[in-house]
């Protein structure tokens, strides 16, 4: 299941992980809302990368690599950050709360919902980290 980030295989591995990880399934059982990620150029990585993850009641309902914003016009959350910061989170070098609180990760969506569900968000990050075999 673990794969190199960024890759479509990584996102597919994440989908599988989210659907089979008992801890995530339990902690996210009330979560309702999809995520649209924007990974921005930083350092030697000079592309903009997007992917979409459907999440509903502890399950992943689908993933789209190179997702188009037009195809997902109203995601529950849009999370954006530089490639350096996103990969630092995935490799465990950057605490996701630190990323949020120091604006290395930007969030668009219902902040009330996010604050009510911080444990779910952090466990989602754990799953992301556990499917990251390495960084390209």
């Amino acid at each position, binding site marked *: 299941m673990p794969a190199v980030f960024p890759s479509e295989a990584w996102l597919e591995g994440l989908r599988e992980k989210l659907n089979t990880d008992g801890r995530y399934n339990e902690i996210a059982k009330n979560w309702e809302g999809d995520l649209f990620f924007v990974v921005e150029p930083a350092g030697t990585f000079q592309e903009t990368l997007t992917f979409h993850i459907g999440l509903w009641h502890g399950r992943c309902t689908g993933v789209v690599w190179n997702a188009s914003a037009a195809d997902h016009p109203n995601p529950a959350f849009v999370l954006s950050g530089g490639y350096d910061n996103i990969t630092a989170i995935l490799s465990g070098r950057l*605490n996701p709360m*630190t990323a949020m*609180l*120091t604006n290395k990760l930007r969030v668009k969506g219902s*902040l009330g919902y996010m604050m009510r569900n911080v444990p779910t968000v952090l466990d989602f990050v754990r799953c992301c980290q556990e499917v990251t075999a390495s960084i390209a």
Partner: protein
Amino acid sequence: MQPILKIDLSSQGHETLEVPDAWRRDFLGGASLAGRFLYSVLSRDLDPLSEEAPLLFLTGPLSGTAGPTTGRLVVCGKGPATGLWAESNIGGYWAPELRQAGYDGVWITGGAERPLYLWLNGGRVEFLPAEHLWGSDTYEAQDLLRQELGSGMESVVIGPAGEKRVVFASIASGQGRFAGRAGLGAVMGAKNLKAIAVRGEGTIPVHDPAAYARLRSEANRTLRQDNEARVLGAVGTAGVANYSEYLGALPAKYFHQGVFSQIDQVSGSTMAETILVGRSACHACVIACGRVVRLEDGQRRKGPEHETICSFGPNLLIDDLAEITRLGELCDRYGMDTISAGGTIGLALHLFESGSITTEDTGGRELRWGDASAVGELLSLTARREGFGDLLAQGSRRLGRAFGAEEEAVQVNGLEVAYHDPRGVSGMALVYATSPRGACHNQSDYFFVDWGHTEASLGIEYFARHAQAEKAANVARHQDWRTVYNSLVMCLFANVPTEMQLRLINAACGLDWTLADMLTSGERGWNLKRAINNRLGLTRANDRLPKALLAPFKEGGSADFEPDLAGMLYGYYLARGWDLDTGKPLLETLLRLGLADVASDLWASPEQTP
């Protein structure tokens, strides 16, 4: 800059006091500058509720400008509950008005024979009778003053609790902003001073107006985009409630329970989805963390902030947001700090449950967890100092002492602990134990660092939330930084980049500081307040935590964790450069910080020198 207006209530005289340039440079303003003024004035035998006790209202160099969250001022003196240094800052619109009137602060001395209020109308100072205001609550008093003096003025007022010298009486400004902590409302009440009203029309001076204007505009734009500020705007300070409870950092049942399963019913997120109808902001604030809510009666009113929700909610096992809102408003109107009020009532409930307090003590009242109506009644009794309320009005330390259970009171040096439990966020153990005004979360909101809010430019790093002595130096550094905020006087929620904060200071004050200089200024202020407290009798033995915080929770996100306070303090003293035996800043520490006179005073005789 501008002078300080010194008022003698006894003679009804006044004079202006220029601030020495060196003091402005070394301490900036606010609480640190107040400390510099009061260092030699506060003494061990000074009764904080006597006429002689000073009360200083000070702004900072950014106050009243259009800089980010710069509408604040700080009130300083000697704490009636602690007998130590007291400071409490307050938002709203009074500070800008004062600076526009031509003063950077007001220093109150003496006491009036009869209730009065001060009217600072531009450069004119009037002492006006306040018998007709005496007894009015904080909101009524401000309305009456507005009727009397016209619009375009701002006032700071006390309520009945301040008049009755409740040791946790607050000072109000506007409908919903309070200098809540440290009981300085009682100091005002003891002086028969009901209010200070001010109107100003002048320009607030900054050293380089053009540079400052560019910077403050940039800072406000940045702050609008800040995640933390956006959360505070959207769901208020109580937006953190769910996560804090999940971590086991939000104490329930008077610090004896690590979970509160109804937390979502009282959280900021739920408030935003149910009773919230608006937001309120202090001067020059783009965050607007203030809540405006509507309950069944249809009236718009202030919604509770995080500490009030915790104090009357989980702390007393009340899970009804409307009831908590009403209890918060009751405290606000009486002019009482919600943290200390809830903490003191929490102790009463705890001691009633254990049988130490009985109905014979309470005038026949049963004290039960979750009974909002009874809590409301206790608040009224406290503010009026009637019956059992007279004991509550003395705070939890004296309440505990009255029933032979002082060790059960969750307070440090007489100030009730705020609701960020060190068993969930261990850095708060050091913050509470070493805060100059007693257990306080505003001298350092280190719980945010324990969540992950680092500040790399200042060397403030992330340590696990249950790390122990290894984070001691980090806590000290964070305290220093927050001391700068309390000098400015800037809201802790102004999460602007530190480099931007530095440039604002330099432009406003004509300085050429580095970040290290800025942090040293904070360290100087922290050590000065420590030295004041040493003079007032504080020793290493005062750096403690109450028993309840050293007993692990049995349940929740921090179950079984116990802060190693002794180990943390050891690391902290070393990091601070404080004497391990006496708890005083070492001679070389004080000299390094340019506090030679304080060094001579604290280490006057050879046998005192370590």
